[in-house]
Structures are given as C-alpha cells and as structure tokens.
C-alpha cells in the first residue's frame, strides 16, 4: 500500500470495489469525501475472473458465510450475482448523489483492468481499493499508484482493514 496522504486536494477519487462487504462502506465514505472536496468520483466495479473460473469448475461449491451452508456454483448464477452486485453499487451511488451534489461515473471491469481505466486511476489523487478478492486488479492498482506522481492508494481487503480505511477517509474529510 502506498503511503497514505497527509492531506488531499483531490480532483478525482477512484473507488474500486467487487461487490464484497467492505466495498459498500468504503464507497459511502469515499462519496462523502468526494462531495466535500467537490472531487469527481470514479467507481470501478471489478468482476473477479477468479470467481467466474471457480464457478465453471465441475465441483465448484461455495460455503456460505456466516451460515456455513454449502451450495453448488454455476457460471450463469455467478454472472447474475455479479451483475446484481454491480447494480446495487450503482444505485447506491445514484442515491448518494441525489442527497449531495456529486459528479460521478460508474464502470464495470472484468479481469485485469484495461489501460484506459488504469490511466484514469493514475491521474486521480486518491485511489480506494476495497476489493475482497480480485487480487490481480488490486495489484494493478497498487502498481499504478506507485508509479503515479499524484495518486495515493488506500486499500482494504478485510473488515479490519476497512476500519482503518474508513478512519482514514473520515480524517481526510475532516
């Protein structure tokens, strides 16, 4: 993770999420920060290829959390689920934007992030990667931020990391 900024004067904030639990909370906090800084909010919903690969395996099973119930997985269901999650994230941002004036865009990416997307991230001041899976996308973002002159990266994979991330976002929002 890149060194967190002491203070940001952001024009653009990129939030990458993959429909897992930490994403929603991070998105809300980032939206609040963006509204406050009058920055543009770019949301990238990452559909994890690993998940699709997993679903395609003949013996693919999922163990529910926290129910511990085991279910079979298939590709169509997984795709539907990911679409649903993406739509949820989009409507959440739309709802947030209705409450506070917010300039935002929403993109869905599958697999490794494309060049144009990475270019957008490189020009952002703050990149929030709230990705539970999607290791590859996370690594790509980290590499971009490392190389970028402006962008700082905040990353959360688990709930514990999310707390730290949220604290940081709140601090930045003042």
């Amino acid at each position, binding site marked *: 993770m890149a060194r967190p900024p002491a203070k940001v004067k952001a024009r653009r904030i990129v939030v990458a999420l993959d*429909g*897992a639990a930490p994403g929603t909370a991070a998105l809300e906090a980032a939206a609040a920060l963006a509204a406050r800084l009058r920055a543009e909010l770019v949301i990238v919903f990452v559909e994890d*290829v*690993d*998940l699709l*690969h*997993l679903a*395609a*395996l*003949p*013996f*693919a*099973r*999922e*163990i*529910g*959390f*926290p*129910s*511990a119930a*085991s279910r079979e*997985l298939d590709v169509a269901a*997984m795709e539907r*689920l*990911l679409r649903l*999650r993406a739509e949820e994230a989009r409507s959440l941002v739309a709802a947030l934007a209705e409450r506070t004036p917010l300039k935002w865009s929403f993109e869905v990416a599958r697999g490794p992030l494309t060049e144009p997307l990475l270019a957008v991230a490189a020009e952002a001041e703050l990149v929030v990667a709230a990705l*539970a*899976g999607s*290791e*590859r996308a996370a*690594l790509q973002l980290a590499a971009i931020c490392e190389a970028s002159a402006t962008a700082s990266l905040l990353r959360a994979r*688990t*709930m*514990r990391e999310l*707390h730290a991330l949220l604290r940081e976002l709140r601090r930045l929002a003042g």
Partner: protein
Amino acid sequence: MAENLQITARRLAAAELRRRCDLADAGFATTDELKDPAEVLAQPRAVDAIRFGVGIRAEGFNLYAMGPEGHGRHTTVRLLLDERAAREPVPPDWCYVFNFETPHKPSRLELPAGRAPQFSQDMQRLVEDLRAGIPAAFETDEYRARRQEIETEFNERQEQAVNGVGERARKEGIALVRTPSGFAFAPMHKDGVMEPERFRALPQAEQQRVEALIAKLQEELETVIQDVPKWRREAQHKLRELNRQVTHSAVNSQIGDLNTKYRDLPQVQQYLARVQEDVLDHAEYFRQPKEGESPTLFGIPLRAEPGESPLKRYQVNVVVEHSKSEGAPAVYEDNPNHGNLVGRIEHIAQMGALVTDFTLIKAGALHRANGGYLVLDALKVLQQPFAWEALKRVLRSREIRIESPAQSYGLISTVSLEPEPIPLDVKVVLVGERFLYYMLYEYDPEFRQLFKVAGDFEEDTERGRDSELAHARLIAMLARKEKLRALDRAGVERMIEHASRHAGDAERLSLQMRGLADLLRETNYWAQTAGREIAGPEDVRRAIEARERRQDRVRQRLLREVLRGTLLIASEGERVGQVNGLAVLELGGFAFGMPHRITARVRLGGGKVVDIEREVELGGPLHSKGVLILSGYLAGRYAQRQPLSLAASLVFEQSYSGVEGDSASSAELYALLSALAEAPIRQSLAVTGSVNQHGDVQAIGGVNDKIEGFFDLCKARGLTGEQGVLIPAANVKHLMLRDDVVEAVAAGRFGVFAVDNVEQGMEILTGIAADALNRRVEARLTDFAERARAPGAAAARTKEWRGRPQK
C-alpha cells in the same frame, strides 16, 4: 252562658300565652358586645358521641351524625374534627411508582409527610441527569476504544480462523476464494484460479486428488465458520457487559446521592435499587432521540404527548401529599361518587385506543383523608351508584383498592391497571337524616358493624337563662361571621322568642341553626331597607311576617273562602251537634291552623259511632283510633248498665282530603255529647285536644298555629270578646302566640281556655253545668236503650227510619 255556672276551666291570662325573653340583666345593648359561644350549642349528646367516636381507636367505630337538616350537624362535626385533627400527627405521603417486575400492578410507596413532592422532583432530576450523563459516558474515547476492541477481536478471530484454512489450502496449491456470499476453494494456477479448460486437461488422477482435497478443505472451513455465530454471541455479550459497566458508572454516582438522601427510608432505597437495575438494562432509553423526532405513522405522531417516553417509568406519581398540612386531615367530599371516593385510573386516547399507566392514577377522598377523617353526606353516598358498596368494602378491608366499578363487578375483563392497595386508617363520619340511620341499621347488616357510633342531634333544648344567653351569643357570632348588622337587645330577645315558637314550646328553644341564620339575614335586609344601622325587634318582626306573607297563599285563600261563606265556619251563634275543630296544614315548611266544622248526628241504633271519614277512607288510623276511643268513653261513662243503643255519625264537614291525627277527638266528642244532650254549642269557640277513654283532654301538637288560625278568622270577622279557643291544659306550656293574639287576650277580646277534661270543655261550650249535661246525656241514652229493648223496637226503628226523610 248561664250566670250561676261556676266555670272550672281556666281562662288564660295574656302573660301565659307567650313566654317573653328578657335579657335586660345580661348587660349588653347590641350583639357587638357579646362574645362567641364557648362551644357547640346545646348538643351535649351528639357532641359526646362524636368525641367518643372520634377518640376511640377500634375497628368499625365510624360515626353517623344524625338529625334533621339545618341543625348544624356538618358544622359541629367539622368543628370537632378540626379540633381533634389539629392535635394529631400528619399522616404519610403516598406515591405510585412503576412496578419493574409486573408493570400492570403499580407499586405504592410510603414517604413521611411532605417528602413525596421532593422525592418526585429528585427522580425527575435524576432522569434528566441520566439523559445527559449516560450518552456522555458512551461518547468517551474510552468507551469507543473498548467497544472497537471487542469488535476487532471478533473480526480478527474470524479472519484468522478463515485465513488459517486458507493458508493450509495454499500449501496444497488450492486457493481460498471469496465469493460475494461466502468462500470457495479452487485449484490455483499462477496467481489466480485455474481456468476450467486447464483443469479438465489435467490427468484424471490429479483431478480426483484435487477434488478430494477441496472436499476436505470445505469440510474444515465449514466447521470453522460454524463457530462464528458463537463468537459473535460472545462479542455481543462482552459489548453488553461493557455497556452495563459504562452505564453503571454514570448511574452509580447519581443514584448514590439519592440513596444517601433517603437513607432513612428502606422502601425508597429498595425502589432506587430497582431503578438502578432497570436503568442498567435499558440504557438505550437514555440514548434515544430527543423530542421532536418521535416516530410517526403516516405522518401522525405515535406518542400522544411529548413527555410520553420510555423514561416515564421513572416518574413518581404523588397521589397524596401533606407538605402543607398541619395535623391529621379532615376532608369533606361534597360529591361522593365512586371515583371521587376511592380514586380512579384515567386514560389517554392514543390512535383511537385508550391507554393508561401508573402516572394516571388519581387519588380519591379516602386517600386524602387517610390517617384522619372523612365527612360524607349519607344521602349523597347512597344516591351515587356503587359508592356505598365501595365505601363499605374499603372500610372492611382497611385498604384502598382503586378499581373501576366495571372492574369490581367483573363486567370488563380488559385489565388496565391494578395498583397496589394502600393501607387505610380513616374515620368516616356520615351525616344524614335519622330515618336513613334507622333504615340502614335495619336493612344493611354491614352498616351496624362499620358505623358503631351514632351522634344524635337534638331539635331543641331546654329554655332557660343560660340557654337564652348562649343563643344570644350564637346570634352575635353569626352576625359577625356573615358581616351582618348588629342586633340590639330587644331584637335578640325577639329572635329567641321566635326560636321558642319554632320549637313549638315556650319552655324549649329550637336548635335549627339554618332557620336562625336565615332569619338573621332577613332581619339584616329589612334593617337595611329601613336604613337602620343596628337591627331591632321591628326588623325581626318584619322578617318573620314577610316570610309568612311569602308563604301563606293557601292560608289566605282558605280564609277568604270562609269569609265569603263558601266554607261554612260559624264564629257566632249556637248549634246542636256542631263544633269548630282545628286542624293544622303544612305546606313547604309553612304550617298554619285552620278551623273545620265537625258535626255529629245521633239516633237509636246498635251502639256504633260511625266515623264517616273512615268509611270513605279519608281518615287515617290515628283519627279512627280517636273516634273509637270516643265510643269507649261514651259506653264507660254513660251506659255501664245498659247497652249503648246509639247510632251516631261524625264528620269533618267540607273536608275533601285526608284527615289524620287524634287532635280533633275532643271536638268530635263535644259534638256528639251536644247532639245527645241536645245542648247547643257556642260557635264562637273552637276546640282542640285529644281525649282518652276517661274523658281527660290530652295534649296535641301545633297548638299555636291552631289558636292563631281561629283567631285570624275571628279577627277578620271582628273580635267580639265571646270568641276563644279551648286547648288541653297540658298544652299551656307550649304557648308562644303572636303578639296580636296576646294583645287581644289582654284586652279581653279573645279567650284561650285550658281544659283538663271533657266536662270542663262542655261547660264552656254549652254554658250548662256538667252534672246537668251528664244527666241529659244519660237520659237520652237510657231512652235509646229502653226503646231498643222494648218489644216492637225493631218496628219502631223501621218507622223512624222511614219517617226521617220526610222531616
């Protein structure tokens, strides 16, 4: 009247007709110079009974103060109770508080007199302080840090467990993948999940190995995840404990202060301990949004009042407090209905439903009087539905249980509240008429057990110098109390005489305070009209006359019809078998005397005196009794050795309503004797008095009204000096006649005769000596008897009967 007749009946002197009151030596000119009476006027029996009843501390010794209206029962009871209550300790205050165990049964709380309001305020302040203190405690960094610690611990534990499985899997070349709703295992290839094509390309044995491995890992993860809810419960439990600890520290100091303040009251301490527990369990109540953010349903506020909040449960409902009392309470409940007696539970309409809680419990008169005295009007209690039963139940159980009549009669089953009963120690004084006491005593067995002391009020008292002076003082006190004009001595004397007249007895004084006070007020009015600063006897007289004038329409109308000759009453001349009797009519508290013509006819017959009034059922039993006594007298006096072969009929002429009482029996006997002796009776005289079988004339009631009734008629026709009234000698002591009657008698223009027996009466009425008269009666009766015995008497009777109508 025969010149040689020696009249044995006594013609009364004017002085005997009205006993004057003379307070010349009492040494006062006006009532301003008189002191207030030392104590309750002339009701020693009642006063002693009340003092006894109030003093005795035993079950069922409640009081019934009985007597007629307006005799100062309420005033006396009040006075005696106040006097005693002032010396007694102030009873405790009572509150209702929330019952934390059974909310629908509010608990009672006893506090020493006057401390309940303070306690209520203290509790209110406590809640306010906690409202500030508890959220503050939850906003400290300490709390936040500790809370996060618990949450983090839980999260870490969970992640570690999952990651542990993940690590083991990775070593075997298997990835733990987070899916949107859980976890899954997949074989790895480079950094990601192996593509399905690649997996299918693996040798069969390898595929099977991976599959078996994944199945094992899945099982392992399942076990781990199954533990998660347990860990969450543990975390929640820790969080709750933390909340409790934080609340505890905030609550402890606050309640600690109250505990110290109410150290002497174990009951309050217990309550405070329960409050503390409850606050610890419900700290969230204190962290709720302030007013104005109350929940709504379709825009309608769900709470009726802004004060309506879960914190209401910590309020203290002071139902009765004595912070301003001195001594025990003496309460008079003017409207003793069920709710006003035992208290009630009010309801508030909320979203169309009626709801209630312990703060809506309202005290009744019994709560307020608890530890002291409660005065009630017996009739009012009996008139109010369920009130009498409720009062008895409360006195029997010695505790006040607030329940609506519908509840106590089991008519509704929706339980609202059942407040804990409050122990009762009260002395109830019922004030009422005598007949109510005797009726309750007779028909209500519980009444006897609960009201064991009766205070019986007298209507009148012995008239003497002391009582006259006491009466004068009472008048003075009433005048001062009502800021009326002072009365001069002559005025006082006249009022006392009126009290005597009201008692209907020259030797007694009426104790009807209301009448006395009213007369005083009316006197004051007339004095004011006359422009007098000090009221005098003429004002008293004017007040009495004006009052009579206002009420005497019927009397005047009857008198007018007599004067016009519609009602036949003679006041001059003589006639056989006809006498003026006197009756008293009472209408709306105003009594007056009216002469009535009584006639008798006799003939040969079977010894029966027919009372026409009785035959037509216009005569009451006492009247009939009087007439039967006449027959007894006649037979015993005149027909001892022969059958009483007489048929007589007696009637009250022109009487169209009932006749009751035996006060006309002497008049009826005079009419009968006159008819038998064929001796005419002077119509200028009127007669009253009952008679016994020996011919003695006995006392009757309303003697003054009767004399004045005949006097008024004679006066209207012109007083001749021949006119007068015969009264029983035993009634002389009752004479308190009007001034104009006394003056007429003094001037010899009217006479009042005291008669001991029938013979004296007959002498005056007929002017014939008793012996001669008796002989004539005997002769007539003997004649009847012989005729009845003689052969052919029946034929003679028939003949006579036939002959009659032609006569």
